[in-house]
């Protein structure tokens, strides 16, 4: 973890699904476990950027944002190590 990342908020957004609802959660990056931070880093490397991409109908997609970095992760590739973060997601308008 770099010093600049330590005090940052990790923002998570779930979009898509049949309902198309938008759910969000945010976390203090420094409070994530080492395994979780490692999985987040892997997401940034494997699924970088936040431009909308073509996907599979009605599957969820997960956007991660940390400072200037972002990742857009298809549901099928969401890491097991980050499964617990999904329980914090709550509906949000728009």
């Amino acid at each position, binding site marked *: 973890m770099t010093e600049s990342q330590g005090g940052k908020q990790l923002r998570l*957004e779930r979009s898509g*699904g049949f*309902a198309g609802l938008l759910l969000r959660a945010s976390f203090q990056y420094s409070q994530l476990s080492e395994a979780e931070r490692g999985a987040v880093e892997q997401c940034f490397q494997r699924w970088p950027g936040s431009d909308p991409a073509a*996907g599979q109908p009605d599957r969820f997609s997960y956007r991660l944002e940390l400072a200037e970095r972002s990742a857009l992760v298809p549901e099928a590739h969401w890491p097991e190590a980050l499964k617990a973060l999904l329980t914090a997601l709550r509906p949000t308008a*728009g």
Partner: protein
Amino acid sequence: MRSYHFIVPPQLLEQRALRGSAEEREIALATLSIDHSIRAGRIQNTLLAGSAQRLQLAVRRGAGRPDRTVFDAKHRLDTHATSVLRTEEGQPAGDAAANQAFDGLGATYGFYWDVFRRDSIDNAALPLLGEVHFGERYDNAFWDGERMMFGDGDGQLFTGFTSAIDVIGHELTHGVTEATLGLRYLGQPGALNESISDVFGSMVKQYQLGQTADQADWLIGAGILGPVMQGQALRSMKAPGTAYEGDNQPGSMSGYVSTASDNGGVHLNSGIPNHAFYLAAVALGGRAWEKAGRIWYEVMVRRAVGPQAGFVQFAQATTTMAASLFGLGSAEANAVQEAWRETQVL
């Protein structure tokens, strides 16, 4: 010179293809290939592969009868579950979700067959496979190209997805779209893909209820909302943006949403073509599938637009199709054009 037309039921031809002599098999396959080319191809492939058991199953069904199997995902995110809860041969399962899924798959098959003579998703008797109890408290349902997955819902946002027949119609229609227009799931083609699923999902429900366009509620996902969701459904084709508290679907281009989320807002901007279909169907009166639905369906099966089509191309294609089916300047062509104008697409 007199010509004769022999009308032999496809089932009989398939029996001959399976069990007849070499000559009978050749004649049967040739006949099948005229108007059942895909099915005949399957039979040929199956014969070549030597899997007679699978062929016998396909033959026994016959067109017009679904081939459904519902599996139990046992709360795992397993898209290849093998535990069977219900088949065509078996009795109703001791599992309400399995029975609802089975019935919904059948109702959707029945709608497409009765109205459009479409034999399953691929029009070639594709078996309809569903999985219930997908994931833990999973708040979604989707078609993955081979099976439809049903989550049980978390009890807060959603109470489950098997009870809403329009949801099942919606998901299976994603398969029909994939087999016909192949619309890319991004931006406007993605929103059209979504809208087509809502259009046909709603018609599956209306067909089951025997409703005319003006009797229908035009809601998508009514009855599956949990206590956290304040509203009556997830989407309203009649009045986009009013289905639940926080619904911000637009009903016209003035409200078009540019966003990176949800594959470019496919579930938001689908409200625009959804509303256009509603306007056309209500203006034409009667049952939605008889005119507006037929126009939309013909655009799909004739591949009148490409995979990257936007709203304008789709609007033009449906207007042209209406004129082709019902006549230039017909009430149908005018109603479709007016619906797209009212939604500010044309």
